[in-house]
Structures are given as structure tokens and as C-alpha cells.
């Protein structure tokens, strides 16, 4: 296995990444965020040199409701602005041959929105994104948001009914949502195209936070991870508090 890694999550920077070290450790792919595409000249030469290529854009940093964006915002201008930004991102992805865009549902608006009103907005947004080209749009469940179970994600993917809309599984999110990653993968079935991996706390008394812990620091087991990931493309999305290279290496060791 030669997984990808999200260097933005790993380092907290959108450009300043230890690509040679990551390549030396065994990473061959990069999961980017949309902001990285605005600064492509700052990292692309080093990535090429390290033979490490972008495989996915994770748009979750553009989908923090109200802070950055939402695909089911009850305020039209907010949803439209989000879509415009993501359409631009998709354009750049096509330029660089990046096959996957990961997106997530939003939260319910605090007032004047029911789940039945939010859902069609999400479906419509996914269709609009899908219509812009052949990049695969992957819907992933995220904690504290609508449609947090794999079953709900699968149902929305089916409802969108576009060939380039499928699902991703974030195994840490599954844990935070109270699902077993392997069961979530099973629920997603053939819709599942891509797996993101980080650890998550599930101890009683510890607040549930989407901390993207290094592997081995939470509730995720190797067995669960392997059962969930199978032979699918995998990206490591950890935010270590200390040495990023060490954490990235340790993740590979843990997954081996």
C-alpha cells in the first residue's frame, strides 16, 4: 500500500510541506485542500521532484457552515457562494488531473429549516457540482452534521444519481458518529471509492472532537481500518501536536 497524505492537516500549512521526507517515508499521493490549488506553484515543483502526486482535494475546509460554506445553507447567497468556490476548485482540479473532490453535508440551519428542507438542497448542490465535469464528487459523513451515518450517505448518493457522485469514508468520523468503520464501509458498498484515515477518541467522559488524531491514539483498531479500507485508495489525515514527519511515518507503520 502507498497511501496519500493530507499535508495541510499534517503541518497546518497550505504550502510548507516536507515532501521529500514524506516521499522517503513511503507516501506517493497528496490529499490537498482547495487553498493549495491557489498556491500550486509553491509546492508543485517539489512534489514532482519527490514523485508524489495530488490524488484528491478535500473540500471540508471550505464547508465549515457559516465560517466558509455549506451545500445546504438556507440562505441562498451562502450556498451559491460555496458552489461558486467549489466549481472554481473543480476547474483547477481538472487542469491538474486530480480525480476526487471530497465534500460533506452541513449542519441544519438554526431556524426555519427542517431536515426535509436541507436534504434537497444538498442533493441539488451535488448535482450542480457533478455537472461541471467528470471529476468524481465524494460525499463523506462528518460528525456534528446532518446525515452522519453511512446509510444516510449512501441514500443521498443514490438520490443524486449521477455517475460521478460517490462516497468516501472517513474512519475517524465514523467512530465519532458511533459507527464501526467496517460496518460503514459495508453500508456504502460499491459507492465507496476512497478512505480517509485518522484516529478519534471514544472514551467516556472525553468530549467528542474531530481532532484527527495520529493513528493509535484513539479508538481505531488496525482490524477495523483494514476491513474498512480493503483495496481502496487511502489518505492519512492526521493533525499531530508534535513532529509531523514522525507522525506520518508512524501512521505508515501502524497501517502496515
Amino acid at each position: 500500500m502507498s497511501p496519500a497524505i493530507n499535508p495541510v492537516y499534517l503541518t497546518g500549512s497550505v504550502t510548507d510541506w516536507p515532501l521529500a521526507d514524506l516521499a522517503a517515508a513511503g507516501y506517493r499521493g497528496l490529499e490537498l485542500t482547495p487553498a493549495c490549488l491557489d498556491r500550486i506553484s509553491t509546492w508543485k515543483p517539489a512534489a514532482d521532484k519527490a514523485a508524489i502526486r495530488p490524488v484528491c482535494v478535500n473540500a471540508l475546509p471550505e464547508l465549515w457552515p457559516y465560517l466558509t460554506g455549506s451545500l445546504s445553507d438556507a440562505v441562498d447567497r451562502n450556498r451559491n457562494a460555496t458552489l461558486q468556490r467549489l466549481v472554481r476548485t473543480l476547474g483547477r482540479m481538472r487542469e491538474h488531473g486530480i480525480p476526487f473532490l471530497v465534500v460533506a453535508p452541513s449542519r441544519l440551519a438554526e431556524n426555519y429549516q427542517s431536515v426535509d428542507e436541507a436534504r434537497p438542497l444538498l442533493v441539488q448542490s451535488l448535482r450542480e457540482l457533478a455537472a461541471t465535469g467528470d471529476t468524481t464528487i465524494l460525499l463523506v459523513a462528518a460528525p456534528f452534521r446532518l446525515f452522519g451515518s453511512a446509510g444516510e450517505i449512501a441514500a443521498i448518493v443514490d438520490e443524486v444519481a449521477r455517475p460521478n457522485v460517490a462516497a468516501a469514508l472517513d474512519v475517524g468520523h465514523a467512530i465519532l458518529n458511533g459507527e464501526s468503520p467496517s460496518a460503514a464501509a459495508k453500508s456504502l458498498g460499491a459507492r465507496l471509492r476512497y478512505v480517509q484515515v485518522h484516529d478519534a477518541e471514544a472514551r467516556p467522559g472525553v468530549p467528542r472532537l474531530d481532532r484527527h488524531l495520529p493513528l493509535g491514539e484513539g479508538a481505531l483498531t488496525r482490524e477495523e481500518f483494514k476491513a474498512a479500507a480493503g483495496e481502496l485508495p487511502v489518505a492519512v489525515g492526521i493533525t499531530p501536536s508534535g513532529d509531523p514527519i514522525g507522525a506520518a511515518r508512524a501512521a505508515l507503520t501502524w497501517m502496515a
Partner: protein
Amino acid sequence: MSSEDKLPRVWVRPVHPEESPGFAERAVKPVTRADLDHQVQTTALRGFGADRSPDQPPHQYRVVNIKETLDLYTKDYDFGRVIWPFWTFLFAENWRDAIDEMAARKLYLFDIWGYCPSGPENRFGWSEYQIPDDKHRYILEKMGPLFLGYDNGEQDGRYIGGYAKLVCPAPATRRQGYEAFRLYFEHLGDDLQNYLTSLNSLTFPHYFAQMGNHRLLGAETAQALPSVPMWYAFIRGAGKQYGVLWFGNASVWNRWGAKSLADIHAEDTSAPGFLSGPTAGTSMSLLRRLWYVLVMYGSVIMGFEAGHLGSATEERKVGGVTKSVPVLTDIGREHLAGAKWCADHPDRGEQHTPVALLWDFHAGWAPPRHLYTSDAYLVWGNMPYEKGDHQIDLLLRELYPSYEDAGFYHSEQGFLTATPCGDSFDVVLSDVAEAVLNRYECVVVLGETRLEGELLAKLKQYVERSGHVVACANQLGPGAEGLFHVAVGAVEEAYHAIVEGHPWPINESRFRTHHLTPRQPEEVLARTRQGAPLAVRSRHPGGGSTLLFASEFFLTNALLAPDKIHNDVDQPLPSPYAMLEHVKAILLPYLRSFNLVAVEGPAIQFFVNVTSRADHLVVTLCNNSPQPWEGAIRPRRGRIVKATNWMTNRTLPGGESIRLEVPPLDVVVIEMALDGPAFEVRG
């Protein structure tokens, strides 16, 4: 330290925003005291009526009875000049009429409220609306400084409760936590012309003031929100640090419902989904105490949230004309009495807050539990407390006992607390200017704060200018040891302490402590049996001093596993740590020593206000207990030659101290004239 034979140098000058650095350059000017006619202004009116429901298409409606409504709240009953309306009047066909009328009457337009992320504008309720440029310009042209801003209302709590945890991945650093918070408030500011007033619901006023787009800072007190003495330490500190005045407000809501006095004989009802009625919501006694406490804290605007008028009417003569008007409720009566009291006692002075609690700008600290999440112990709403955050919490539990219970107890415990060391602290963040630090006699460095670089340089200057600094050895960065006259060595563990003047060791839970080597024969206030210093005091040539604790954040090692901590209503919230006993023995009396009065008797909330007349003190005593308080107040210097109870205007006998009784759940303000100065004026 604060020597008994030398007069303390006390800052007496209130905040004047126009004197703060950068005021002239600020696009959005903070409200000045001149804008408010140098007096406390009061507020009651919360909205205008409309001829039809705005949310009904085609969303065309008119504000009705503008003059009559303003008359009712400012003339029939003089609730004050501050109008605090719901936002929808601004989008009525005749909205200019309302603005023009308020401008003509020289009323203040304050904190236009109702903004809520993701609510469609055409619902005209809790909506995410945008203020068009031309509308904003018109308001400014007509009202000028009388327009006090749009409401950043309870949004810090809303962010923490509803949005922070959706940041994916959760921040790995405090700076990232701040950046996410800032994104939320950039959106809000852009929608509201970056012309804001903050009605805080959590402890983030510094960040709002620092953003440069806020005209006033304040809080929605009571409700199910934080403890007021603790909270206003933040708000005052932010106001002083960034040159923004603050206001007070007391809500009729609590966690379970709202007080409604419309019909005093009605039964409480839970029909709307929450309890409502005469005995629901915030108690009258808490509302009353909050008025006087918040005013004495220096609030420039004060008001109760709602409920001034009943549903019954009475004949009332106004301006020679008899009118039928709604009857006053107890809330309305308390408002009018409180406003009159403010007018009768205009020289309330500046609250004496000699001690600054200082921590890192990016800390994002919030109380260990609050209304907006069932999780306990988070900073920025999405990062777990670290040990330094527990240090802040546990010191605040000593300064404001049960502060962490505010909003969680039916008994209202925690909203106002006793203050065993005096209600005499402000919170400032590490970007504080040196000139602002000079307001304070002592700075206590708390939390995950590193004493290095610019902050260390500021504190060195501060000590040279006779300031006193308290810190822990684990907070010292490169170059900081010199300030404390120690060398910091390896970490050890200990389980006892011998405090100077105590015959026997104090038993402690195990704690981590740095080995300190004093560089000069410094004063060791506590040590281990083996002689390792645990607290070292150093006097500096300019009259300043430092006090360094060897222990890590002056806390024990962790004592409680996370699964043992439960956060439930009407139940205490345990901390995983405890403040070390030897630290309590040294630090708390030290902090108490900065007060200008000693209060003898059961623990009570107290603070002192000062003016440039150094032989006058104004002492506020707030009894937050259902039992009468009996005790005495004694100036630390001087003898009382005359004292007056401002609540009754009765004169009290002078002497070394005044004995008095404060009724249960009530507040008393005493003015004392002394036979000599109690302090030396600075500032």
C-alpha cells in the same frame, strides 16, 4: 510587596476611548463618554410594531405607532434614552420615519438585534440579514454618534455551541482555534457593516474589541450564562485593554424559562415549551442585584431585558394630559428606581481592580461548563483544556466560589458569588500595551502562557516601574529566570510543603515541581522538607516584586479520570486537578492584600470604587445568600469620619470600621470619607 506602611498607588481614571492609542485611525470609533453625555444611560424598549407580519409575502409592511411607542417608554415612563429594537423595523417601508423620530428626540439607537446565521432574511425573525450600504449611511447621517451599533448578540456562545465543532479537522493549535473563530465574526461583521456592539454570552470580549469594529462591549447577564463577577473581569479587562466602554444588561430568562409579570396573578405556564410567568425566569432579587453591581462596575448603559410593563392599564397624568397607559411591573419599578439612584449618585468612581489576570492572546479560554455545550473543559469550543486552562479555572473558583455553577442551578448560585479576595480582578491578554498594564498593581500570569519575547520585555518594564508579577516556573521561557532571580532546574515530584511561619508541613496531593535555585538570598516562602524552594519572592529596586511558584501551574497532578466527571444541572462540576494548599496559603492572602478595605464577616461579594479624592472610598457589598449578612468593613488605611448608605441615604457612625447588615439577596453601597488618604492617585 503591598507594604502596609506605604500608600498603594491606585489607578482612578476611567477608560476614555478617545485617549486610547489608535482611536483617531479607527474606522469605527468606540462610543465615548461624551457621546453618552457623561452619564449612565438606560434602556427598555425592545422593538416597534408593524401593520402586518413582515414574513408574509410580499414582505411589505410599515412600522406603526412610532411616536406613541417612543412616548410610552421615554415620556409616559422615563425608562431612558436608549432604544434597543429588533431589526425588522429597518426593512419597513417607513423605516426612515423611525430613524428620523429617534434622531429628532436625541435618543440612542442601540444594538439592533435579531441576527442569526443561516436564517433566511425573508423570515424576518432570527435571520441572517445584511445591512445595505445606503441604509447604514442614512442611519449614520441622521443619528451620528447616537447610533451605537448592530448587535453581535450572544454570538460567541453561538459560535462555540453551534459551529466550532464543525471545524474539520479541529484546531491543533490555539492560533488555529482563533482563526476559525475569526472567520465566523468576519462573516457577521461584513453582514452588519462592521459597526457592532457585542452582547457577549461567553468570555470572548477581548477578541471582539481587538477586531476594531465594535463600539461597545457588554453581556447578557443572568439567563443561563456565565458568572457575572468572573465575566465582567473579562469585559472590563477587554475594555481597558482596547479602549472600549462596556454596558450591562440583565436577562429575565434562565435555563428553564422567562419571567413574565404582564399579569402578576397569572399562574406560571409551560405552554410555549418553556416556563413563563411571574415566578419563572430570573428572580427579582437577582435582577435588582445585577443592576447595582453592573452599574458600579462602570457600565455606561444599563437595562433589564424585558418585562417593564403589565397588560393592565391605568390612568396616568403625563405633561398635564391624562392618558391610559400600561401599569408598571416590578421590573419597571426596579428600572425606574435604579435609574434614579444612578442620577442621584453620579460620582460612583472607578472600580478598583488592582490585579490583572493575564494569559496568552490565543488561549480562547471559556468557563469549564456553560450553556452552549454539554461538554466540559473546552477552549475555543473545539479543543480540550490543557493543564494551564485548569489553572485559570481553579484560581477563578477561589476568587469567585461556585462561579462555574452559573446557569446550572435552580437556586441561581454562581450568577453572583462571594469574592473572598475582593471583586478586584480584570483579565487581560498577552498583547496588552504597557500603558494599560500600568493601571494594575499586580499581574498574575496564568494558563498556557510562555513568558518570553515581547511579553517578557513588557513585564520586566512593569516590574521596574514598581509592578508585582506572579507566575509559575513552568511558564518561564528563555530569559525569564532573570526576572524572578532564580535558576530553574529539573522537574521533581513532591507531596508536601512547608510554608514560612507554619510549624508543620502541609500535606499535598502529589505535584510536579521545578527545582528552583535562587540567585540571591531571596525570600523563600515555601519549601520542601529537603529544602527545595516552592515559592520564591524577589524584591526589585524600583519597588516592584516577583513571586514565583515552583509547581506546574500551581496544581496537583491529575486526580480524576475523565469518565468520573459529569456535567449535570443542579450538580457540582468536579475538576480533575486541585490548587495546591501551599499556594492557597501564600497567593490568596497576597491577592487580598491589594484591596483598600478589609471585610470582616462571612464571605460576601465586595468591591471598592475610587475617585481622585484619595480620602473617599465607595464600597459595594452584595449579599448573594438568602441569609442576612452581618459584618464590618474596615479601610486598610485611615479612619472613617463619615459614611453614608447610598441605598437609604442614611449616615452611619464612623470609626475604625463600620458594622452593618446587608439584607438577604440584596446589595448595599456605602460611601466612606476618611481622615486621610487611603491611596496615592496614579493615572
